[in-house]
């Protein structure tokens, strides 16, 4: 599985660099077996990203969840969606700025300017509009992006600011009272995008069950998100296509139904491949998430229908962060 590189979550970045070198194989090494599952000598190759965190609060957790789901919807890949976003965790009333239930979401982009543009747009469309909600910075990063400072203009002159505890907030009059939004949000340029695990199973139902177990384990790791639907990607892609208007297309080498008619990369026992893509605020957070996912998958084991666990990379030439599966096992 060494040259699994053209995935939905990564091809966009590859194209973004306008340089798609041929991937190199992983360095030779032995595979490891754990509980009947082969752990390939592979590594996930991840990239620096800019990221922010927001805390959305509401009178009830349900409305905070609704706003967070709306804000993080259609945010699976930076190329197709502008940003990658997801829910980090739900917050108790004691952990939110206004003492109401809340949700912390993380948003990732390739550059700070993109992050600010898309964050403001999403908060404006999905939180400002959502009944009862307020929005705060959820990160003390090394830089700030504008948030309420841009959204305030919706107030059409009736907005007002408050400086409380050294932080500036904007109050925007809306039909249910006021939308309260912190003027800016913390940003880090040290975030990491593209951590991943490839899950190879015997059948689709078994692979999906195993992947769900891993997703649940990873979601407990703070400061990380899984931007794809349900935390999973099934549409691994390659760069290019037989059709000139397509910049990427399905990676037939990993489609089990095409094993008989393509140069497949799958062994005969593999009937399904699913991928987990991980973005994190730090290198350590991504490593912890991959470790948690690995552990959960190994516990499922061969008896649970798993064949192997691998990871996607570009041969180590594009992304500075390499998460070797065997090192994560240690």
């Amino acid at each position, binding site marked *: 599985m060494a040259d699994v590189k053209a995935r939905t979550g990564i091809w966009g970045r590859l194209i973004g660099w306008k340089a798609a070198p041929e991937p190199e194989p992983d360095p030779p090494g032995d595979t490891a077996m754990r509980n009947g599952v082969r752990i390939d000598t592979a590594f996930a190759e991840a990239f620096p990203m800019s990221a922010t965190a927001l805390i959305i*609060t509401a*009178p009830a957790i349900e409305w905070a969840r609704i706003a967070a789901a709306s804000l993080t919807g259609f945010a699976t890949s930076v190329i197709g969606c502008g940003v990658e976003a997801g829910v980090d965790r739900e917050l108790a009333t004691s952990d939110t*700025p*206004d*003492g*109401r239930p809340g949700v912390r979401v993380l948003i990732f982009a390739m550059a700070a300017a993109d992050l600010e543009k898309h964050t403001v747009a999403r908060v404006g469309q999905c939180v400002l509009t959502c009944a009862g909600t*307020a929005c705060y910075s959820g990160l003390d990063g090394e830089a700030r992006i504008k948030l309420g400072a841009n959204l305030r203009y919706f107030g059409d002159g*009736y907005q*007002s*600011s*408050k*400086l*409380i*505890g050294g932080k500036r*907030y904007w*109050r925007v009059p809306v039909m249910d*009272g*006021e939308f*309260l939004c912190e003027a800016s949000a913390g940003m880090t340029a040290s975030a990491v995008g593209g951590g991943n695990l490839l899950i190879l199973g015997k059948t689709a139902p078994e692979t999906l069950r195993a992947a769900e177990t891993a997703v649940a384990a990873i979601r407990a790791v703070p400061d990380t998100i899984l931007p794809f639907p349900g935390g999973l990607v099934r549409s691994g892609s390659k760069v290019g296509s037989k059709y000139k208007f397509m910049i990427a297309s399905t990676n037939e080498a990993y489609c089990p139904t095409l094993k008989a008619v393509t140069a497949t990369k799958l062994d005969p026992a593999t009937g399904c491949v699913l991928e987990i893509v991980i973005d994190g605020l730090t290198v350590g957070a991504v490593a912890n998430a991959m470790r948690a996912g690995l552990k959960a998958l190994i516990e499922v084991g061969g008896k649970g229908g798993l064949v192997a666990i691998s990871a996607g990379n570009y041969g180590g030439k594009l992304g500075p962060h390499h998460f070797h599966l065997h090192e994560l096992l240690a």
Partner: protein
Amino acid sequence: MTAMAFKLRGEPDQRLDLSALTPDRLNGLSEAAVAALPLHMGKTPVTVGDVFRIIMGDVADIRIDGSERLDHVGAGLTRGRLTVEGGVGAYAGRAMAGGELKIQGNAGPYAGSILSGGLVHIGGEAGDFLGGPRPGEMRGMRGGTVAAAGRAGDRAGDRMRRGLIVIGGDAGDFPGSRMIAGTVAILGGCGRLPGYLMRRGTIVLGGDAASWAPTFAESGVAELTVMRLIAREVKTLMPSAAVAVLEGSVRRFAGDLAISGKGEIIRPA
């Protein structure tokens, strides 16, 4: 390192200007040099050594015995902590830009006058013009926080531009007069005409006022999330304050409509 302390030798014979006793002014001075600093505001020369027994220590942590004849205590403070064991006279913390001034007793008029940063904490009552400008000055507080646990005199927050004033008890007449922006939180009631001629800003009033200007228009009842943040900030400054009433439904009065009407007085519903 222990605090640098100034112990009164007796009640001062005249009003004194203590603006020299701040970390910036005392830094690097010998005990003799500190003792020679002039404090007098009248014709009779008075030095620190004449009034205080000096205990040298950390200049960033100063303790002073209090007296109502000590004016300008902590004036111009930019860093460190200055604690007054007792009350002070006028202009305590005037033009402070940072640091913390803690007055365990009462403060006279103009405490926190034209503050731009830092915290002035008054354990007792505050006089008139809390945070306000002197006559002729166009702006009051420009930032920072002033908290008085007891009542405050007239015109607290006069011409305030930014920052937070918290009054644990009642306020006198015209609180928030001519406010430009910022927040004045009065946990008790107040005298006549709160928010008189205020342009913008927020006055939170826990109780009632002796009289109301007709130029404030009621804007209904709402649950304002920002009140939760203000209540939390007040609770941080005054842990024993009953702020829960501010976190629920509140009644908003917009004004002063004689000016622009972009200010507000917020009361529990």
